[in-house]
């Protein structure tokens, strides 16, 4: 009984759980890892989590694509298209940030010869 409830819950919320799991993992990596590359990976995971979350907001189980030209599809089962549009934008932005971060990492390495954020602390106080 309890088990089936859990299963049901998981079925309904699996995307949210996954999304927040990823977000949590991403934040955790950023918090505890000192290597810049790992932190960037963490950022990437965080972003993925956020994107997944956005998709999940608009997702309906067993939904169809929101294309009105096909009259056989009922509008109730259409997936909300707006989050997908958002996610597309967000992914693009994420890529830009990621690329910038990596290029900065290269330059940082050129300057310091190291990527440990604990030791790259000339700018402080």
């Amino acid at each position, binding site marked *: 009984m309890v088990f089936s409830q859990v299963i049901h819950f998981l079925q309904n919320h699996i995307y949210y759980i996954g999304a927040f799991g990823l977000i949590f993992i991403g934040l955790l990596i950023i918090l505890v890892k000192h290597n810049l590359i790992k932190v960037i990976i963490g950022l990437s995971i*965080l972003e993925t989590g956020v994107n997944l979350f956005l998709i999940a*907001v608009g997702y309906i189980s067993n939904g169809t694509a929101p294309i009105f030209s096909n009259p056989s599809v009922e509008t109730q089962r259409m997936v909300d298209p707006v989050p997908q549009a*958002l996610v597309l934008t967000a992914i693009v932005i994420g890529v830009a940030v990621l690329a910038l*971060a990596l290029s900065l990492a290269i330059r940082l390495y050129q300057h310091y010869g190291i990527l440990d954020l604990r030791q790259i602390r000339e700018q402080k106080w």
Partner: protein
Amino acid sequence: MDDAGLFSGGPNPILLVVVPLGFAFALPLIGFVSKKILKYIPVGVFMFNLVVALRLLPLVLKQPILVEIGGFSPPFCINLVAGPVGILFSALIALAGLLVAVYTLVYIKEGPEEKYHILYLLLLTAATGVVLTGDIFNLFVFFEILCISSYTLVAYVGNRAGIESSVKYLIQGAVGSSLLLIGIGLLYGLFGTLNMADLARQIVSVGSSSAFIPMAFMITGLGIEAAIFPLNSWLPDAHSSAPSSVSAILSGIAIEVGLYAVVRILFTLFGLSSFFLFFVFLGVLTLLIGEMCAFSQNNIKRMLAYSSIGQIGLILFAFAIATAYAVTGGLFQMISHTLGKGLLFLAAGYMIVRSGSMEISSLKGMGKRMPLTALAFTIGAFSLVGLPPFIGFPSKFLIIRSALAEEALIFNILIGLILLGTVIEGAYFFRVVQVIYFQKENEHQKRHEAPVAALIPMFLFMIAIVAIGIYPKLVTGILDSAASELLDRVDYIRSVIQ
């Protein structure tokens, strides 16, 4: 594109965003034609923007102009809301952008200049977009453009400090934008719309407390750019490592746009007035931390950066009081900070170039070597401290006045703390002024003034500071209606969704 704006007498507000954006992308193409012309493009663009914004200003004071993109009417379309606040900020951005662009003509001499100008245009486009948009996802997008171009501009020089600060800024900024996006997602999940007016209407009907969690995410995300206390760790690094012209924009425009977004979210979207007291405290805390950190700096740009934190604290404090007077004061303080801090960074920039060091002690004898720049710095410093007859005085005056109108004892204590912050602020600014004018210089150095193109913007800043300081009526009329736009949610909703 809806043409309503075009035919109502004034230029279409969308030009404010489209023109600089278009030129930003056209810049590489123009670069093929002539490399020399590149640096004049931002000047032209922002002059255009300034003219447009100033022409729009009297119109929007009567009636906000809505621009609906894509042919739908709100809440379904992406729209721009050019109210008094938006146009006021656009004008401010265009003004600062123009003056700093003129300064840049001579200041930026090395590095990939073309990219600098592209990013510069993008940064200010994004800032204009943030203040004009009526849609939270668009807000996010513009914010990201703003952030990415700032990350890059911070690292523009490519030295150790710049890269390091940029990386740190990027990490915090990326976390912030993720949080913002989560907030937006939550809001969309709850209300199924992204239009601010529509969201506000729905939140009004269900009560603002139900939307608290998204608000918390959004405030945290935007707060990073707005430099509210625990979220502002990137600021001193980034502002001090960026080229001075960029610092002027970051300090003068970027964080204020961030704060604008926070305020817009708080006031218009959620109207969560029970939570304002928290922001009052937060503002005072930010102010004190900023001023105290600035007090013990040896690096002039770092000092100015921390001082920006202090100013942001004051502005946040003013907004969080949320009375008409206070919001007017907050907006006034924003203008005063943009002008004052812009001037300070520009002046400091050339002093640093001439002395070759960012140490405050190396500015000795600048009063003699570059008297006009030193004068500019002094006026900026006096203005920020809040001395009459400069612009800092009326703005601080309004804020303290509105805080005193609050009866609660706690406000009296907070005013005391703010004034304490002002005293500390005075102490470090006057110390620098003394170093510039009155410290014994090591050897007799010859006069070596900043180039004319750098002096002109400084002079214009100074004129603005003194003129508004003596005659605050120049802006108070606009500020009053801007404040009422910020405070009056219902009116905002009604004006967007007819």
